[in-house]
């Protein structure tokens, strides 16, 4: 068994164990952390297939951003674990049926024709980040720019829908504060001087 095959099996076993723990862990924080582990090992598998761009983006996007957000939510919200776990045994048979069907379907798809097909010719060996970059900024520059516009609209829409200037919030106006004059804050009142009472 070559070293590469050993690594493959190692990652696969870790991935499967982590995936099982995601759904069996009692604590949602542990579940989320196991999901992070699953993502990491999946990225490792992709790295073995020389799909380094996918591997890196999986780690950056899912582990770096999505899962951190997820952990935040899980830790911030007070989730009642008992309620979540209710009905697990009722749903289990349905889950098993669906899972079994999916296994059969995958076996049908992967089993018959596609095992003999072999690997696609990868062609000239360049790193796939470089290859992606080459077409992204040349051949596909138009869709790329359009995707940028789409993101801009998403930002505009999100801000337009959520930014609310409440009328009842009190806020400071620094410019006004700086320009304030003595006369705005202090009122000089001239009062007649009182005479001291006798005996004091």
């Amino acid at each position, binding site marked *: 068994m070559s070293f590469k095959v050993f690594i493959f099996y190692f990652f696969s076993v870790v991935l499967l164990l982590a995936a099982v723990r995601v759904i069996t862990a009692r604590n949602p924080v542990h579940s989320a952390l196991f999901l992070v582990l699953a993502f990491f090992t999946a990225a490792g598998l992709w790295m073995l297939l020389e799909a380094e761009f996918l591997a890196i983006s999986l780690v950056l996007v899912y582990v770096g951003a999505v899962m951190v957000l997820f952990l935040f939510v899980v830790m911030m919200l007070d989730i009642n674990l008992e309620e979540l776990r209710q009905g697990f045994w009722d749903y289990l048979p349905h889950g098993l049926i669906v899972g079994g069907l999916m296994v059969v379907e995958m076996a049908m798809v992967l089993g018959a024709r596609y095992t003999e097909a072999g690997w696609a010719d990868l062609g000239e060996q360049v790193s796939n980040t470089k290859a992606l970059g*080459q077409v992204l900024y*040349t*051949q*596909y*520059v*138009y*869709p790329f720019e*359009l*995707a940028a*516009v*789409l993101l*801009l*609209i*998403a930002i*505009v*829409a999100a*801000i*337009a*829908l959520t930014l*609310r200037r409440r009328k009842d919030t009190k806020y400071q106006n620094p410019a006004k504060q700086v320009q304030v004059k003595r006369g705005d804050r202090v009122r000089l009142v001239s009062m007649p001087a009182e005479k001291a009472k006798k005996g004091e």
Partner: protein
Amino acid sequence: MDFPVVELSPLYPEILLLILASGILLLDVLLGDERRFITYVLALLTLLACGALTVFTGEFRTTYAFGGMFVDDVLADALKFVAYISVFVVLVYSRAYLIGRNLFQGEFFVLVLFALLGMMVMISAHHFLVLYLGLEILSLSLYALVALHRDSAVATEAAMKYFVLGALASGMLLYGISMLYGATGALDIETMARTLREGVEAPMVVVLGLVFVVAGLAFKLGAAPFHMWVPDVYQGAPTPVTLFIGTAPKLASFAFAMRLLAEALQPLLADWRDMLMILAILSMLVGNVAAIAQTNIKRMLAYSAIAHMGFMLLGILSGTINGYSSAMFYVLTYVAMGLGSFGIILLLAREGFEAENLEDFKGLNARNPWYAFLMLLFMFSLAGIPPTVGFYAKLSVLEAVVKIGHTWLAVVAVLLSLVGAFYYLRIVKLMYFDAPVDQAPVAPQADVGLLLSANGAAILLLGIFPQPLMALCAHAVLVSL
């Protein structure tokens, strides 16, 4: 790596629109609420500039850019030009309503302009990836526009429904496109059409992909049985947004259908003709019958839009140049009718009063005979009564259907249109023969009144002299396909 020099000149209108819209977005931040009018005027000027650019750079030949991903042909130029006009009219009609509802914000204009950009991208797309991105640019702007009135629970619900169903439709469309890609190995429209003509190894996959693509398209067009979102969105959205959704995006949807079915999937005509036939009959049936039961005029016009999209599909399914051009004529005139009828609703609305119930139209003739007459024109045209343009549009579509030998289909379409005439004429009856409930004077600002009158005149004049526009449609379709 060989990469052609980017020829940007066909894209000038899109680039100009993107730059100006982004500029307005930046400038609007600096303007206070009392100077929001500047944003409005700039948005109108942007539309004028784009219109002028499209007219002056428009060539009567087909040019490609970005290695065939972008196409600039007569069809695209014509549709884009009508889109500018309709967005311009939408902005003018909605001004008073927006000011009255505290919706006169920069985001409204920016999102409308971005939606227009999405439409232009769709109209000029010659690649499935670009087509999809244009669709998403349009849809995302529309979802946000529907939800823009945040204090209204109905609007939020409508936006939610629109978003969820729209996302589902996008998913179906992408699934279908991925199957087509798997079978033909191409996303480029021209290559895909060529591959399909030469025959592919797995015709079943192609047909399955076609089913999903047509379903996604029907969702976006709002054709039955994928029409569920239309009534809720039309009713729930603020009326200016309804006016916008109900008009210009129909042009983009038509272009979408043309690029997809008539260009890329033309070799599968026999397969998609049957699908469109079912969609068209169901749409006309559901649209016309369900509209009778409505008391809310926005909802009624939503069902009417479903029925009209069904009629438009009749033109496309004929699969001939004649049919495509009559469908184009239909959609162009439908946009004019939609602008007019929603324009009148906006005209009657005022602060704290929506004018969205049928009762609100009672006795409009007594309140203001001119606008009642304009509404009568729009309703006659929607019903297809001569001498308005709606009659000629329906006639030319029916002619195309009869020419391919489906006389029964034309008969069904005519019968269902007769059912539809009932609810259009009911509005006319309410306006002319009932006593007014609401006595508020109808006095729009001069520019709105002028545009509405011009809109009505266009409906009438195009009905009497349809030939120039019909010839333009025929020419556009002929040289572009």
